[in-house]
């Protein structure tokens, strides 16, 4: 059992090293299989671990070696598997495996497929470090590592600078978040003398609620989370990250990496519940992000960007849950979201694939009959994400909505609103792409074809999961046991003990209300959007509020104006003016002054002997004057 967590790391690492080193010699077809095999191996291990933990083993710990050790400081390289980790492992490897298989088909024609799979394996490796690590510093390795893999994969087609810009942007914005995480670690170490997550949790639980130290730490952690999980104000990289191959968007930018922020907070739940202020901030940030991103999504025209904004919005939704201390709700939504969002991305990829890399939905339409399998899968995904029962999204959203209504009515309504926004933009997407009469481009395109089995099969599996995954946590209204919540319960015991009113004692009416009310509106919205979007009329985005939304609230432009340009200006200013003109001139000035002094000093040497004699006499007089008279 001890060796298993280690194997989890070793397998993808071997995969990466093999594929990376022999990039040129390994055939593309083999590369995909090899990469998938490592993930498959990991999936099996994860399953073993998952069930081992379910059947009693409380925690599996593996200490590999002393990483940093001197004086009283000791940070070991240590892995730990608890239930939260096991769940994450399942998601990563399950979704990961499917996406790997999908990629075999998707990347078949790409020259750099081997490199692609190497990067994917690298990502899997770092993601495992992230979820397996027993201390924050190790977690940070994975944290940065997935950022790096994301950078490499977004910029996978590096011949085009737009892709590279997107990759760079993702990395740099992530670094801003990372800085927060580093600061958090420094604070943690300074005050707890350790970075071990569970030790910190137990030490922190002694502290009183609202402690300013905890506030600072959690704020820093949250900054880290906003970077990775694309929350305000650091979310702008995620839509741009769609420049990468679609499987990447599915795996990294929908299912796994972007949820690391949620994972981090869930991991540190003890700290967060001790800081109500931070929770409120998270709540506000999550809500704002969810709404903002949802609004933007409605007006986008790029199929992947819509899904990206949807992801941002959904992540915001999860943060709302976190902000209300509903960690299990957040985790559950993370879990289901991984399936249907991955499915949607893959289906979108299939669409794009079918249309030979067309991503603009205005150039689509009428695909319903041309690629029926993809269409069916896309519909399942859309229904699931919209929270229509009995699909997975319904159950996870319900859990969060319940928490929200329990928190306050306002929050409840806001959460419902976010959920409805989802319906709106998703069905718009569905209708425009599949139902709307075929656009000119589609009509002219005779190569439209359904994707190969290697792509449709993984999608189908995901679709099945999107349908059934919700049933592992049926609302209390219908069932006494909530498998998911119960499984995770030990992870959050400590934090739930610290919150006074965590366990939701819901009354039936309230719960029915939460169930029924959104559903009614959802169906209304679906109808509305069907009427609105299936017709030819495009959205008018030239004026008013719509324009602001379509232009993404000008956030990118704002950052450009406030941060990028000033820094660029300062950089040039420093280089050309401060460094060259001021400092260098000053230093040279010292030297030149000496030379100038020298130039004039030598003029004293007039060459006139009479003058020399005069100076001598004056000097003697001065000498005698100072020595004798004074």
């Amino acid at each position, binding site marked *: 059992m001890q060796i298993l967590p280690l194997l989890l790391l070793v397998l993808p690492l071997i995969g990466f090293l093999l594929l990376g080193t022999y990039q040129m010699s390994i055939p593309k077809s083999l590369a995909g299989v090899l990469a998938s095999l490592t993930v498959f191996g990991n999936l099996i291990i994860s399953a073993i671990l998952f069930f081992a933990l379910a059947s009693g083993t409380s925690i599996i710990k593996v200490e590999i070696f002393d990483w940093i050790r001197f004086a009283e400081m000791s940070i070991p390289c240590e892995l730990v598997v608890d239930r939260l980790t096991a769940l994450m492992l399942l998601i990563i490897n399950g979704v990961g495996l499917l996406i790997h298989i999908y990629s075999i088909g998707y990347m078949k024609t790409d020259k750099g497929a081997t490199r692609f799979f190497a990067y994917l394996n690298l990502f899997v490796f770092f993601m495992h470090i992230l979820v397996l690590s027993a201390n924050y510093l190790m977690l940070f390795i994975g944290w940065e590592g997935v950022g790096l893999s994301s950078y490499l994969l977004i910029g996978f087609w590096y011949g085009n600078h737009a892709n590279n810009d997107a990759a760079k942007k993702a990395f740099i914005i992530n670094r801003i978040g990372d800085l927060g995480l580093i600061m958090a670690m420094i604070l943690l170490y300074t005050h707890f003398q350790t970075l071990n997550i569970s030790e910190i949790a137990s030490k922190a639980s002694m502290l009183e609620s609202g402690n300013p130290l905890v506030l600072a730490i959690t704020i820093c952690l949250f900054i880290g989370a906003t970077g990775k999980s694309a929350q305000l104000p650091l979310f702008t990289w995620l839509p741009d990250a769609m420049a990468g191959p679609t499987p990447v968007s599915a795996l990294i930018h929908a299912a796994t990496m972007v949820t690391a922020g949620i994972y981090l907070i869930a991991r540190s739940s003890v700290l967060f519940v001790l800081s109500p202020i931070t929770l409120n901030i998270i709540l506000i940030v999550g809500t704002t992000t969810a709404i903002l991103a949802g609004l933007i999504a409605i007006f986008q025209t790029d199929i992947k960007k819509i899904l990206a904004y949807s992801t941002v919005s959904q992540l915001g939704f999860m943060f709302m849950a976190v902000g209300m201390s509903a960690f299990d709700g957040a985790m559950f939504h993370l879990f289901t979201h991984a399936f249907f969002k991955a499915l949607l991305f893959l289906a979108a990829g299939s669409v794009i694939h079918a249309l030979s890399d067309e991503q603009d939905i205005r150039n689509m339409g009428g695909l319903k009959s041309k690629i029926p399998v993809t269409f069916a899968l896309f519909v399942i995904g859309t229904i699931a994400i919209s929270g229509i029962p009995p699909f997975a999204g319904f159950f996870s959203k319900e859990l969060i909505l319940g928490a929200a209504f329990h928190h306050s009515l306002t929050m409840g309504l806001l959460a419902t609103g976010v959920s409805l926004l989802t319906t709106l933009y998703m069905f718009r997407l569905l209708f425009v792409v599949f139902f709307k009469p075929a656009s000119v481009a589609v009509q002219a395109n005779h190569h439209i074809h359904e994707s190969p089995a290697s792509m449709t099969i993984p999608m189908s599996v995901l679709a099945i999961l999107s349908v059934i995954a919700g049933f592992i946590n049926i609302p209390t209204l219908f069932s006494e046991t909530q498998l998911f919540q119960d499984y995770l319960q030990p992870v959050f015991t400590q934090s739930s003990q610290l919150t006074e009113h965590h366990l939701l004692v819901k009354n039936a009416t309230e719960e029915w209300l939460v169930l029924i009310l959104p559903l009614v509106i959802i169906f209304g919205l679906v109808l509305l959007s069907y009427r609105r979007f299936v017709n030819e009329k495009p959205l008018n985005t030239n004026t008013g509020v719509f324009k602001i939304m379509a232009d993404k609230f000008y956030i990118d432009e704002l950052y450009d104006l406030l941060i990028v340009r000033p820094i660029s200006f300062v950089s040039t200013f420093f*280089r050309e003016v401060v460094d060259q003109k001021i400092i260098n001139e000053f230093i040279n000035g010292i030297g030149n002054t000496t030379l100038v002094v020298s130039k004039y000093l030598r003029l004293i040497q007039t060459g006139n002997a009479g003058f020399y004699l005069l100076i001598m006499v004056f000097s003697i007089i001065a000498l005698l004057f100072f020595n004798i008279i004074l």
Partner: protein
Amino acid sequence: MIIALLILLPLIASILLFTEKLGKHSKNFALAVGVIMLGISLAGGYAFTFAAQKILVIDLDLMKYLDLNIAMKIDALSLIMVVLTTFLVPIIIASSEKWEKRTPSFYAFIMLMEMALIGVFTASDVILFYIFWELALIPIFFITAFWGSGDAKKISIKFLIYTVVGSFAMLVAMLYVYTLTPDPHSFDFETFLSLNLPYTVQVPVFLAFFLAFAIKIPLFPFHSWQAETYNASPVQGSMLLAGVMLKMGLYGIIRFILPLCPLVIISDWSIIYLSLITFGVIYGAVIAINQPQLKKLIAFASLSHVGIIALGIFSDTAYGLHGSIIQLFSHGVNVVGFFLCYNIIKKRTKTDVIADLGGIASVAPRFATVFLIILLANISMPLTNSFVGEFLILLGVFQMNVTIAIIASLTIILGAVYMLKMYQQIMYGPKTECVNEFSDLSAKELLLFMPILVMIFLIGIYPSVILHLLDQVI
């Protein structure tokens, strides 16, 4: 014994090379000596860790004849610096090509430099330290001025004068402190460091030493020689400068300023120089963002990095110090790796203007990977060597001064900005004209990178190599 070998071997090699009798074999000879030196220093490391430490001390009291005490000692810090030097010198030698003029002398100067550097790092007599310190200037001056390009002559003279100004200030301070040693006066490190100087004395001593070290390192605002000199120097010269020579200054801070002027470091005034350094850290990083020339970019990046290291040292905490020492080593490795990449690019495209380059990754994937790893090491990616160091430094600085730690840590972001911007422009995007002929790394070149890469991951994954050593002394 080991120290004597470490000093004499390069000296003899350098004299042999100066005779220019070795002709074609000069490079191989120098390389062989370099590798042997590495072996010896590793043997020293072995001896230090496992055997009696006696062999790592030389104490020849030649006061009578030389007016000098040949006292040299290797402790953990010295050992790390010596290993760094002997590790880098063979790589530097191997990276060089045949020059149009005086090739043997070029290697002779490198060997001389190696000797001087080892002397600086092992001397345990203040004047001996000073002598080696100055001696190290001469070879680098000649390397830059003679084999450099562009305005090398003028620039190297400026560099020389600039650093000499600093070291003379240091000399004054050394002589001054000497007069304060108890009778009979002594230049021995031990005597120096056991002095408990009053605050009023520590201030001028600090200023003088700081000036010398700040110029050498260089710290803002004493850096104006750096970019020019790197740019004018042949790439091997830049490697020596950035890889090892600027470590002399940091080493000096640890050796002299920390023990001699503890009161200044904890005084309220320390905020003045700390702010200067911190500003320099940001300043270097910001300038690097829009820097059009690769070599100058490396220079400014280096300015930023060493500023962080200096902050770590001045933080006066165990974390900061340990982190700084790891960084001393890592930065040497990384910057030399960086210059190796620069060398490859420059050699093949004949340009180092970033805007003229592009799309190299598509023709040279191996090179792209190697470059990326080195670049990531430079921006302190976890699992590379500089991550642990930088984290510890920030931890240390944080405990000293929160604001400074936060400002300094901005380099984590800025570093990513300028490095990725540069990397994207050079390696990605459409191919430019001068890149068309670009061939991927040959096996030989790859071999040259290997030690660097191994070191990057070794220190990154197992920093205890260094930390354990340090634990025995600090």
